[in-house]
């Protein structure tokens, strides 16, 4: 039975393992690597691991999370999804509502804009009010435990958006008519905005994972994340309906009639909103679950 040793986990296998949720990798990652060192791996193994990562995200085994880590994971995921969906929605509104194009005449589209504005405002208020006690608790924890990196991650939630706004205001002051300078200004602000939103939401999410705070602030933030996720999903739905309505009913702006653009927007919104709401649902379920013995 002696023969060539089976090939251990290669870079593709490691990439496939990276597709799994962090809690899954932490629990089973080493075991799978040890198995593949003995059994070898090939394209079938890589494909099998990659495919099985999807149900691990969609329906994660419950024993991988205790109640509080489930809530923390949900708060972090909702925060990232919320930032992404708010950014996508803001770009959509900027492109369609705020640039002086003729307002879409159909009442359904107008109602969708109103719902979008109201839902987004509710989600912002809920996210700030619900996240503030947890953020303050983590700031205190990081200070007491002298953890400057975690403090830096936490302050990114404030400093990065402030820096972005300061940069945007400065640019608007220096360049009096940015619209006359072409679409590069808008593209630049949009890309920077997404980067800022990503950093501002990733900071607290990373700190949440590293500091692992507990107590009522986590439960409160999780409940708020549930409300914020629902509100921002409603905003996303309203913007998607508005995008479809613009595509069907407007007569002025040619870009509105590109069904592929509207379809791509719809797909992005649905994917982010689904991720946020599913994760928020799990967190809320954990919040109201009876703690184990």
């Amino acid at each position: 039975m002696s023969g060539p040793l089976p090939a251990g986990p290669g870079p593709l296998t490691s990439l496939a393992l990276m597709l799994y949720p962090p809690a899954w990798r932490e629990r089973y990652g080493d075991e799978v690597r040890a198995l593949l060192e003995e059994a070898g791996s090939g394209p079938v193994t890589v494909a099998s691991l990659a495919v099985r990562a999807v149900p691990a995200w969609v329906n994660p085994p419950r024993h991988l999370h205790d109640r509080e880590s489930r809530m923390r994971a949900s708060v972090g995921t909702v925060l990232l999804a919320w930032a992404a969906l708010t950014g996508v929605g803001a770009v959509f509104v900027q492109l369609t509502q705020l640039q002086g194009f003729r307002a879409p005449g159909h009442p359904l589209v107008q109602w969708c804009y109103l719902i979008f504005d109201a839902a987004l405002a509710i989600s912002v208020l809920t996210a700030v009010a619900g996240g503030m006690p947890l953020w303050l608790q983590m700031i205190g924890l990081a200070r007491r435990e002298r953890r400057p990196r975690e403090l830096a991650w936490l302050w990114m939630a404030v400093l990065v958006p402030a820096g972005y706004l300061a940069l945007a205001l400065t640019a608007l002051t220096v360049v009096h008519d940015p619209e006359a300078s072409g679409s590069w200004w808008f593209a630049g602000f949009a890309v920077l905005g997404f980067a800022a939103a990503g950093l501002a939401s990733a900071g607290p999410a990373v700190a949440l994972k590293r500091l692992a705070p507990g107590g009522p602030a986590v439960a409160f933030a999780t409940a708020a994340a549930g409300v914020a996720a629902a509100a921002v999903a409603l905003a996303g739905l309203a913007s998607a309906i508005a995008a479809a309505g613009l595509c069907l009913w407007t007569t002025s702006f040619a870009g509105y009639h590109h069904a592929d653009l509207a379809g791509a927007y719809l797909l992005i919104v649905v994917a982010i909103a689904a991720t946020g709401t599913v994760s928020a649902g799990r967190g809320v379920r954990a919040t109201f679950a009876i703690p184990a013995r």
Partner: protein
Amino acid sequence: MANRLDRWADPPLLVLASLADEPKHGYAILRDVSETMGVRLTAGTLYAVIARLEAVGLIEPLASADRRRPYQITAAGRATLAEQSARMGRVASLAQARLGERYGWAGA
């Protein structure tokens, strides 16, 4: 031809059956299922099944000095395996009886 039906095999049942005699780690389960039951599980399928069976309490991990963590079947796992194998036994008996009646099949 028989191997083409492997995809319809019930991996959780195969893993439970593999663990019924003694605790095994992942690679040992793969080999046992392949050698004794003729089904080749992939690493992705195996660990998806292990995670589910562990989550519902049908198997449990044992302490291990290295990364190859062994698993053992629990009392609930034994009860489930007994129930499922009895059901499969009834299906097998019925299938053999009907094949015999209708096609004169005398058994493998």
